[in-house]
């Protein structure tokens, strides 16, 4: 069974050792909730796993493919703090580009995904005119259509209303049942099944 293996990972930021000698493994179908106080390194850990960071020591691999290799990056979808949307583009245009960056999806599917997450009728609205929660929903729509196996979600529930949170949770469960895995950070409790907690 493919799994995400983290072997002896450490990260230093400035003069602070955020974490060191981290060993863990996340199997397909599992959800790992990463908790910790502010500044404990949750975001740094996700960035490292997403291959965005350069300041780490240790080994990370998925199916024998190590982080930053093409095969690994293909399987990763990283949702950061920022919305990754340009205000000058419409939600659909933004989504088209984001999904092309991962693996391309056809337009009809993207429109469908925007509808599913409650943004029907907002396809051609400039992202500058959307609220924080709606922006978050646009990029979550990108997550839901991506074919990536490893979901790395940094505070996926911020700015979302309770129905939004429900949609995301059910999508995470569905993704894990379909042979994916998910790591996410949050300060809230979450009712997700099959969930483990990593406290940094």
């Amino acid at each position, binding site marked *: 069974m493919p799994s995400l293996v983290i072997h002896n990972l450490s990260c230093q930021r400035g003069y602070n050792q955020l974490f060191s000698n981290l060993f863990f493994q996340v199997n397909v179908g599992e959800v790992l909730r990463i908790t910790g106080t502010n500044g404990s390194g949750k975001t740094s850990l996700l960035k490292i796993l997403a291959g965005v960071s350069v300041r780490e020591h240790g080994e990370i691999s998925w199916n024998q493919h190590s982080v930053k290799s093409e095969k690994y990056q293909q399987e990763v979808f990283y949702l950061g703090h920022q*919305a990754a949307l340009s205000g000058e583009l419409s939600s659909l245009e933004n989504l088209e580009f984001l999904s092309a960056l991962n693996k*391309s999806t056809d337009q009809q599917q993207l429109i469908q995904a925007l509808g599913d997450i409650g943004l029907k009728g907002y396809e051609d609205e400039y992202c500058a005119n959307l609220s924080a929660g709606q922006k978050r929903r646009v990029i979550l729509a990108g997550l839901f259509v991506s074919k990536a196996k490893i979901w790395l979600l940094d505070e996926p529930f911020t700015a979302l209303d309770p129905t939004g949170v429900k949609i995301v949770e059910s999508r995470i469960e569905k993704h894990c049942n379909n042979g994916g895995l998910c790591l996410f950070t949050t300060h809230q409790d979450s009712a997700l099944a099959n969930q483990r907690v990593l406290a940094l």
Partner: protein
Amino acid sequence: MNIYLQTLKRDLRVALRNPSSILNPLLFFIISVSLFPLAISPEAAVLSQIAAGIIWVASMLAVLLSLNALFHHDFENGVLEQMVASHHSLPLLILSKIFAHWLLTGIPIILLSPLLGLFLFLDDEGIKILMITLLLATPSLSLIGSIGASLVVGIKNSGMLLSLLILPLYIPILIFASSAVSQAQFGLTIDGQLYFLAMFLVLSLMSAPFVSAIALKISLE
């Protein structure tokens, strides 16, 4: 559609919907060149001698002005992070962005240069050579500029630092390009200068996207 073409299309679209970011450097280019005849002398003999230098210095500063916009917005809104995390080649994604930048600043400068050359009494031959040097060298300006822009992308108010980093690298281009035009005015051969500019273009084309990719990854920390 290919992701690199899509990046190009996206950058062009964003720029055209927010035209002030492209128009500012171009207006700066036109205004600064047109002020020289007022300040120095309106005489044809004087102006035609310094025309190439003026246009080249102004276009270089205009490109420098536009460089901040190259990565800044995508850094702020997190799109760069997504580019780094994607499985596509980051240097090629950056090359598409640089190409978009050249289409939006280099091409308009090249197209405006004959008009500004006429303002400054540059003769037909001089204008022709000026356009050739601009065509050969403005892509290098965008390419080399991307290295500086990616290094300072995370720093606030980095305009001064960017000029300090980039201008020394622009100097050889300035020297060879403006000397090509002035030598052509005297009927001398300019093959050497053009070869040098072409060499600079090839060199920056091969190295700048890779260096920028590394610099961007460091800036994203």
